[in-house]
């Protein structure tokens, strides 16, 4: 297998370019995706290659261009709509919740919506209280849509095409902190499965269940714990809706201990759902209560020291695992 060195940003760009080349029903639409090159430079160069019809700059009209994406999907296209940042998606939520997620049902199965919406999520860049939230787990409450979060280069490269082949709306959340991350990627990756969670690190003593930006932090925590003789399995959920219970239940029934790590605000986070499902389906296999490591429940403050304090840190994860394995007491 030949590998290439690539950043997460470049992997996303390659995925979009690939989609534009493979299917002429595909087009990219959003604020500054064209002339500017994308707010985070993800679509840099694509306007020049594909032209303004297929790499389409929009006015600041989140509700209309997301709704137009739904309409274009109904009209036979395969739109990729980019919303710059998850906070701005609040302006388009009516279209996502009341139309994209419901049209198939309201129409009795007649109108599916093959739409992909991409947006940047998460903190870590000192962008403060209106640009830093992690709402992908919150979106996972909505029936009718699929939620995926690429945490690895392979998923950044391969999830988009899988999403475009899904007949229903798929939201791809890209942790902004990952864009500059560089690494080796199998050059042949074009599409990955988006139904299953993945075991990123096998282990016997406890299970960390996470996704997105906290995956690497969790793996690092696992390595640290390995030195202490605690062998931790790390699971990357990858798809937050529908959740792949089987993968994390299988793990927890083996390790008997679970820690859910999630950059969302703790209350009502996806980690609460995971915890509830483990309780419901593996209660008698648990040797310790399911732990959660989430973000502090605060609109993100600007200064680095407060932002760091608000986010799940490696030490927090290590401490949580130690509590479940009893070594923390």
């Amino acid at each position, binding site marked *: 297998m030949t590998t290439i060195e690539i950043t997460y940003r470049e992997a996303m760009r390659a995925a979009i370019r690939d989609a534009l080349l493979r299917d002429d029903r595909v087009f990219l639409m959003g604020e500054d995706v064209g002339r500017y090159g994308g707010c985070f430079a993800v679509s840099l160069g694509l306007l020049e290659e594909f032209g303004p019809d297929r790499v389409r700059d929009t006015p600041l009209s989140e509700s209309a261009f997301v709704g137009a994406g739904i309409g274009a999907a109904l009209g036979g296209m395969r739109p990729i709509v980019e919303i710059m940042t998850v906070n701005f998606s609040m302006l388009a939520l009516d279209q996502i919740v009341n139309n994209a997620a419901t049209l198939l*049902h309201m129409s009795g199965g007649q109108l599916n919506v093959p739409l992909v919406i991409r947006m940047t999520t998460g903190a870590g860049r000192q962008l403060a209280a209106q640009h830093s939230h992690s709402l992908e787990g919150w979106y996972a409450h909505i029936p009718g849509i699929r939620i995926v979060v690429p945490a690895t280069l392979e998923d950044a490269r391969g999830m988009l095409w899988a999403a475009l082949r899904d007949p229903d709306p798929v939201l791809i959340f890209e942790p902004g902190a990952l864009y500059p991350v560089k690494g080796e990627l199998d050059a042949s990756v074009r599409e990955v499965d988006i139904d299953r969670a993945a075991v990123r690190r096998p282990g016997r003593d406890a299970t960390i269940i996470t996704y997105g930006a906290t995956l690497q932090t969790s793996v690092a925590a696992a390595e640290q714990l390995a030195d202490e003789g605690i062998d931790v399995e790390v699971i990357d959920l990858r798809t937050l809706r529908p959740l792949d219970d089987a993968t994390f239940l299988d793990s927890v029934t083996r390790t008997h201990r679970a820690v859910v790590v999630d950059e969302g605000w703790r209350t009502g986070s996806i980690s609460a759902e995971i915890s509830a499902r483990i309780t419901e389906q593996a209660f008698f296999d648990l040797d310790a209560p399911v732990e959660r490591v989430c973000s502090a429940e605060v609109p993100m403050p600007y200064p680095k020291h407060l932002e760091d304090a608000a986010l799940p840190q490696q030490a927090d994860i290590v401490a949580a695992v130690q509590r479940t394995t009893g070594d923390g007491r």
Partner: protein
Amino acid sequence: MSAKHRQELLRQMLRIRRFEERCAELYSATKIRGFLHLYVGEEAVATGVIGALLPDEPIVSTYREHGHALARGVPMDAVMAEMYGRSTGCSRGRGGSMHLFDADRHFYGGNAIVGGGLPLAVGLGLADALRGAHRVTTCFFGDGAAAEGEFHESMNLATLWQLPVLFACENNQYAMGTALARSHAQTNLALRAASYGLPAWPVDGMDVLAVEDAAQRAVEIIRAGGGPVFLELRTYRFRAHSMYDPDRYRDKAEVEQWKQRDPIDILMARMRSDGELEDGDLEALDREVTEELARAVDAAEAGPWEPVEDLTRFVYSEQS
């Protein structure tokens, strides 16, 4: 315009009128539930506008859409069965009155979020523009919807991108209990719309011939690549907003005055004076419509329910 054509327009308006009147009765008889919004008084708008469209041209509508669905050719049986919530309904009974859909007839619903259909219509127009198709997508919405942010964003987007969209604003003077002048600083909606830089003009929405003529001209402009057009169709609902509405906010004299301009009477008068409507014609027409309606009600009554085991179907597509 041929006498036959006018008779067809009359027939359509009558079908809608009788259908709505029957729905009101069926609501009282608790055969129809939920919210029910009737189109009585506004028949000329759906009939005239949709009469100017080709059958494969997309329509996006509201929760007051029975008339649009019937005018587009969604079978009355399927519409009535939907009112009943039967699986023989045009949305398998899952949508009900506010969510009529018919993909084969390019009828995209049936949207109960005021203004929510506007971006969808822009997107359908965008898809056609990208594919080089020459269809016109029509979006029906009300005067109240024009106050929503989605209206502004959609008008700008469609005009900026010169998309083939007909914005058919049904100005029936009220948004629920809120009169136009208490919703809009600029009550001349055609004038406001024109500020986006697209052709926009007011039309007498009680005169089906005027509506059809305006729609024809609009569609010609759009098909010729002239970009979107906005029509302000001035009309009135003769009944309350919905079956929940005691209609406290309208003065009876105003309602009566508008009823003097009943779109069906106006067309009949025109036809009579032009000798296109003989004695007995109306009765014959009415009999025909009444029979169609009776069949539709019987079919709805006999229609099956979706099985409870299928509750969660159609949340995601069924991979075939």
